[in-house]
């Protein structure tokens, strides 16, 4: 049986990678994938805890996260497609109208 620590470390590494990509990449689709990566890192931690404690709570949360992620993907991809159409670009540096 794999110790829980290993799962958690993998989860932390994945989450860290997600953050790095989220902050430093400029491509909207990459940023979007970074978010998915972070979500799934968290899912991994949930499942690991669920297994370690022998309780189903964590797995229930994972289901919720997957559902929210699916919804988010639908909306997010819609926004991305519109952005791409309107601006002919997928660079976030160009999406900066929201300021005073």
């Amino acid at each position, binding site marked *: 049986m794999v110790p829980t620590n290993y799962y958690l470390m993998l989860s932390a590494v994945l989450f860290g990678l997600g953050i790095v990509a*989220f902050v430093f990449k400029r491509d909207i689709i990459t940023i979007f994938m970074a978010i998915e990566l972070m979500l799934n890192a968290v899912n991994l931690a949930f499942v690991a805890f669920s297994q370690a404690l022998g309780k189903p709570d964590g797995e229930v949360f994972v289901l919720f996260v997957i559902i929210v992620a699916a919804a988010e993907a639908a909306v997010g991809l819609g926004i991305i497609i519109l952005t791409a159409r309107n601006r002919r670009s997928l660079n976030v540096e160009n999406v900066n109208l929201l300021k005073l």
Partner: protein
Amino acid sequence: MSTTPILEYLWIIPLLPLLGSAINGLLGWKWPNKLVHSVALGATGLSFACALEAVREFFANGQQPFRKEFFDWIVAGNFRAGFDLQLDQLTVVMLLVVTGVGFLIHIYSTGYMAHEEGYFRFFSYLNLFMFFMLILVLAANYVLLFVGWEGVGLCSYLLIGFYFLRKSASNAGNKAFIVNRIGDFGFMLGMFLLFRTFHTLDFNALFAQAGPLPSEAMGQFGTLTIACILLFVGATGKSAQLPLYVWLPDAMEGPTPVSALIHAATMVTAGVYMVARSHVLFMHAPTAMYIVAIVGCATAFFAATIGLVQSDIKKVLAYSTVSQLGYMFLGCGVGAFSAGIFHLMTHAFFKALLFLAAGSVIHAMGGEQDMWKMGGLASKIKVTFWCMLFATIAIAGFFPFAAFFSKDAILFAAFNAEQSGKVLYAVGLLAAILTSFYMFRLIWLTFFGKSRFDEHHVHVHESPLNMTIPLMILAFLSLTGGWFALPALWGGKNYFADFLSPILGSGEAAAGEAAHSLEINLSIVAVVAALAGLIVAWRMYRKDVKQGPSTGLHKLLYNKYYVDELYNAAVVSPLMWLSRNVLWKLVDVGVIDGTVNGIAHGTSAVGDTVRQTQSGNTRSYAVWVLVGALVVFVIIFWPVLKPTLFGAVR
């Protein structure tokens, strides 16, 4: 089984006009005039009928003062002010005067106001006034009385400013309201003092406590004297006595039925009623009584002199009202409370009649109020003329009209007063001569001589029946209203004083044989005085007189002793200066606006600085989110992190 249905539900008497007011005020704006005045007249008429029934039950009960506590209104600690109504002899008089005269004036108004804008508004206010006035006279404690007191003040304000598009009318309304505030301030202080001393403001409880106390000496300013003087300050405001009378002549800006109902017959007599109601307190405070007598007497004379030369028919009557109210206070001040109330009642009849008849004259003249532009109306408006003449004879005090009895009772009591009675009597008598003079001057200028108006433009016409019938009823009352005291002439009982004696005491009833012949002699003197005024007026005005140039004393009187100008210079102007230069330009602009604007500017400056972080760059937002998450993480795990980070160092 209860044999006193109305007494048990005494609240119905004031409630009916309140309902009428609410119905007309809320729904009447699109109703035809007929429906509006049906509601108003119905409410007042029913109220009058209920009052009559209540009085019948009162007599059927053997004149037992009735009192009922309907519900608690304010309860705080040992203080209780309830919605308590009472009906005793004094209330009976006031109740019948208010509902009866009020009803007649309502009828009159249907004719007088028929072509005015805001018909429903007028009747709504008038009914509201009836409600508050009835609360005032039925109240069984000072707090509830004060509710009515303030309420009638409000209605007075609303009705004086009825033609609110006219600047002078709205100014007059403001003046009445503000001057009354000064009086009410005194009234409230008086109530506070009474509560501090006796721990109750209920009439019965208060008077029961005050009754056995020793009377304060003349010239002594004890608690009771101070309280009574403060109450009287309230009365001078409401009842237009020196020095607060200035609002009443200006109040003539209101429609004439309002002048008749509020500023002659009922509201302005509230001060007299309140003083009479508090007579137990006043009897213990001779100094306060003396002040009441002097103020009343001075007002009676002072206002009468102004009335001598006024040219506006309503202004003459207004100063006459002030003067007659002075008589009532003179009566109260010398201890003849029932004489004061008697004069209050007769005055309500003949002064309401005078105002209504004057209104009829104004109506006939198409709105003209200047007597110098009238003349020769006697043959053209006969009913109005005869009614006005009746009222004039009544107010002048000729036998056997109403004021003969009531004014004589007051003057007789003044004559017998312990403190400077002869002086009070002499001034009162002088005022009686003046009264007779200015009233007959009014008659001659208005109804006799050649007409001084353009007959082609003014179509003089008699008023419709709904205006003249109230005049006739009031004329009848002006004639007979004093007959309660008729038997006193041949040594019998004065039924009016007798009726009120359980409440007001029988101070002046102790009339021996010598006193009786003295009273007869004084009556004769009074009639001679009235005759003197009549003759002087006749000699001066029987010929076709022209309005001469105003000089000397005449000018001083015509300008009302410049009291308004004096008050303006002494009170209004400094107050305006203070408001404009200190309160407005310093406090309002500097402090208040400064604070508000300062906060706004501060917020704006902070926003300007902080908004720099809103760069529009998505990735910088991401970093902020990350930083925030880190901070939250550190805060949550601080207990774990602290030993890890710093524990190792040690």
